[in-house]
């Protein structure tokens, strides 16, 4: 068994600060393993973390680490990647930090898609402050701030993060170890914003209130609740563990049509008087003509008139010069149609 990952941990500060059986230790250890396997070192890797129990993770890593104010971890990580694209930036934080106080930053950092990897220790509770309900606490869970059971549905991170390609969202648990390791590895090598939602146990401040006696009993509960789905997925269901990812949708820029309309000399156009023009209002199968800046255009092919005499505020058979000048659209809409005459 390869134990070289220990180089990445500040063992002189061990035992670490978390409660017995806490899942954060497992997150720290497995992330360190994956980073070591990829051959990353303290010279090219930076760990960034927020506040909370899980925020202490970066301090235990033998890497340059940044410990940000509560919730601001993603902005900080993104900026570090912007300034130093040569560094691998990993974010080690918790669900309260990332999704509650840092929820706005989660929305916008994921939208900007920087190449950072986020490990979210999702223990469905505020652990450090004593076990208050958080945005990921399942509905009905009794906590010290929801004594009758959490009244609201939890935040569906999977749905939130997979709404716009590209995305990488993995859900795993600290119990499904092989899957857990695979998710960490895949997330680290993903180019772009990758988010690993690690369902983790907080036995002391959540599990015991739920009736579990040991961390292992919570692991068994995870095993009952979740099942692994294999293969490439677009989305993960409520109780599915797996990886949902999509590469960037190719944005095809609209081909710019360069239409060269030969300039028709005014004199060669058929002259219309206003009364004559007025007859071409589309009624009785007649074409729809309008006048604009002295020219008469045939709007019969317009899908908007559809044989009607009136299209919103524009009336067929009239001089629409003033209408179009005050319209929210430009005059280019008129020029799409053939000029058939001139107004005299």
């Amino acid at each position: 068994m390869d134990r070289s990952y220990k180089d990445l941990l500040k063992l002189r500060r061990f035992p670490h600060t978390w409660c017995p059986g806490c899942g954060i230790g497992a997150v720290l250890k497995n992330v360190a393993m994956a980073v070591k396997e990829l051959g990353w070192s303290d010279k090219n890797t930076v760990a960034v973390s927020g506040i909370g129990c899980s925020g202490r993770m970066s301090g235990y890593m033998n890497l340059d680490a940044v410990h940000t104010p509560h919730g601001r971890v993603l902005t900080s990580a993104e900026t570090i990647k912007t300034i130093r694209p040569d560094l691998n930036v990993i974010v080690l934080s918790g669900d309260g930090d990332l999704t509650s106080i840092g929820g706005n930053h989660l929305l916008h950092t994921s939208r900007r898609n920087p190449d950072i990897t986020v490990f979210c220790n999702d223990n469905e509770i505020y652990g450090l402050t004593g076990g208050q309900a958080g945005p990921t606490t399942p509905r009905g869970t009794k906590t010290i701030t929801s004594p009758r059971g959490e009244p609201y549905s939890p935040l569906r991170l999977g749905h939130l993060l997979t709404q716009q390609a590209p995305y990488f969202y993995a859900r795993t648990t600290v119990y499904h170890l092989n899957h857990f390791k695979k998710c960490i590895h895949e997330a680290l090598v993903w180019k772009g914003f990758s988010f690993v939602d690690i369902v983790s146990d907080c036995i002391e401040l959540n599990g015991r209130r739920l009736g579990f006696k040991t961390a292992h009993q919570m692991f068994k509960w995870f095993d009952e609740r979740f099942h692994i789905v294999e293969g490439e997925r677009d989305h993960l269901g409520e109780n599915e563990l797996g990886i949902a990812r999509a590469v960037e949708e190719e944005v095809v820029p609209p081909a710019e049509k360069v239409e060269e309309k030969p300039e028709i000399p005014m004199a060669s156009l058929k002259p219309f008087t206003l009364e004559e023009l007025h007859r071409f209002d589309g009624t009785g199968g007649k074409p729809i003509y309008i006048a604009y800046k002295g020219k008469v255009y045939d709007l019969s092919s317009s899908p908007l008139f559809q044989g009607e005499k009136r299209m919103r505020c524009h009336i067929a058979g009239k001089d629409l010069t003033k209408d179009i000048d005050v319209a929210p659209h430009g005059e280019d809409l008129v020029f799409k149609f053939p000029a058939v005459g001139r107004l005299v």
Partner: protein
Amino acid sequence: MKRLVSGNEAIFQGAVRAGASYFAGYPISPTSEILQQAALYSEENPEFRFLQAEDEIAAAIATISASLAGAKSFSATSGPGFSLMQEALGWGHVVEAPCVFVNSMRVGPSTGMPTQPAQSDLLQIKAGSAGDYYPIAFYPNSVRECFQLTAIAFNAAEESLSPTILLADAFLSHLYEIVDLEDTATEVVPRSKESLGRGQRLFTGTVHDKMGNVKTNDPEIYRRWLWELKDRHDRAAEKYPLFEYLPRKGSETLLIAFGITSRVISSLKDRFSIFRPIRIYPVLEKELNEVTRSYRHIIVVEGSDGQYASWVECAICRKVMRVPCLGGGFKLRWIQSQIEECLRGTTK
């Protein structure tokens, strides 16, 4: 080349001159132009990066993080946005991140009167974030000074290893003057902090010892840390005892004003002596004591309800009179009548 330059542009150009390569901000009047300048500038200079953040909280955090990552960085905002930035300002002091925050003040609290100029964020720069900290703040009163003091603010940041603050007001931000920025000399202090990627250091907002180990139960470590911070800031601030003093022979009255107010009352210099502090914080204690000694009356004219006046009183241990220009009202005639009233009150 001489040309028309606004205060906002001068601030941006001053930052570039000082070597800034990162700007993060959020649109807010009256500093949106700095954000726009940054966007345009980064188009032409890819080594200059900028972020239009989702809010001022993110902008401020990005500014500090960019500094940790090795860039000279800055951000600009106005009063309400500056309130949101306070969290990062405190963090910047603990992680020792040199950078510059520009606060162009407008009438507050809250949304206040957008966008009327004010000078009422002085207490906010000093005490907006939690705990004790000692920021350095400068306040120009012309477009050329906007340029110079931004560069100086960057230098002071590098020397104090902390965020420094450049104050301005809505009036100054949108003030256009003919200046030659290219010809304006500035000194540039190089980057003093090693960037990320050296390995094994922890930059934490929690109080820590020299090794970066978090220590949250030792008052001695906190004391040592705070005195060191204070000492470093004092030494950096001492290098910039900036002020302007226009004595008027025979005048018994000294007017103290800064920023826009100092420009408004400059025409009173034939009647009164005028003292304009440029380094707003730390307060120019020694200089104020020396200057105020020979005056019977001291009147602080400022765009807030006596924020700077209270600092002056602390510094010189003496009561001063106040002319608060509130709600964006900086009319000379009104100020003059208030000064007269103050002086009448003392002769009764």
